[in-house]
């Protein structure tokens, strides 16, 4: 059973995917310098009503084994300790102890 935070992250990813176009449209209006101020302001207010699971900043890479949010190596989706354990067990293709 994945972490509670992992579940939240999954929810955020689904939400971002579903609302990306709508958010971008509102952002386009809100940041457009040529439009009148009131229209931009209204668009910004609408943008504020979106929930937190639609914001792309909520998405964070988490360890696929432990669900830890820090120290994650993106290429493997693993925390540094999990990466070390799997690397020493030869479970990561091509990864070996470096020596030079």
């Amino acid at each position, binding site marked *: 059973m994945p972490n509670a935070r992992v579940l939240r992250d999954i929810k955020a990813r689904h939400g971002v995917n*579903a*609302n990306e*176009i*709508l958010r*971008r*449209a*509102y952002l*386009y*209006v809100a940041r*457009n310098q040529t*439009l*009148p101020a*009131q*229209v931009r302001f*209204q*668009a910004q207010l*609408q943008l504020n*009503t*979106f929930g937190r699971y639609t914001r792309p900043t909520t998405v964070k890479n988490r360890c696929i084994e432990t669900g830890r949010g820090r120290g994650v*190596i993106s290429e493997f989706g693993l925390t*540094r*300790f999990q*990466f*070390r354990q799997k*690397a020493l067990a030869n479970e*990561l*293709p*091509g*990864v*070996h*102890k*470096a*020596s030079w």
Partner: protein
Amino acid sequence: MFSRSCRSAVSALQRSLRFNSTNSRPPAAATEPTLPTGTPLSQIPDISEPFYASSIVHGRGVRPPHILPKTHGIPAATLHFRSYHPNLLDFFVHFAGHAAAALGIPISKPVHLPTQRRLWTVLRGPFVHKKSQENFERRTHKRVIKAWDAHPDTVDLLVQYLEKHIAAGVGMRAVRWTRAPVGIGAKTVETVRGQLRGSDAVPRAQKVKALGEQIVKEEMKAAAGAPTTEGAVQHTAPSS
């Protein structure tokens, strides 16, 4: 792939035979029926199995492949091979060389491109102890073989054969040279435009823009007309 004892035996044999290419071998005895090495398939006459088997150069599969001479120097293909395991890579490149020689394709010797090295330094422990870390690396070894002068169908055959029998752990990429008819530039642009139309990227940007204009219209109407309505507006998910 091989057992430990086999691996060391093969590598020992390879080392001893590395520089004894079939090019420099002395010719076989006159009594034995032989075919010159590198004879293209088209020139081999209809022969029975015993004749062909007795004409095989012993150890040919282990020695470096025969490099056929270029006929015109026109590039046909460039084969890139990448792997994390250099022995496996060299083995498969050796196999690719023999396959090309069997098909009568002049090739270059395998060239070693610079090895890419990816390094990760991680803490040894799961918690604190920053001063004790461990280095892990992953080396990507690369080899290139260039093919010349062959018919495009022959090169197709080589690439398909290699893809079918590729060793697990080796990646191959083939860059091909083909002759194109006059007017190919315009046709290519048209094809690419058609593909763009079908893909997701362009309609998405258009959708965003269209939605934006719609939102602007609504807000302008609301601003120009009665006082603005309070409360959250219904957000409809866009139809994808």
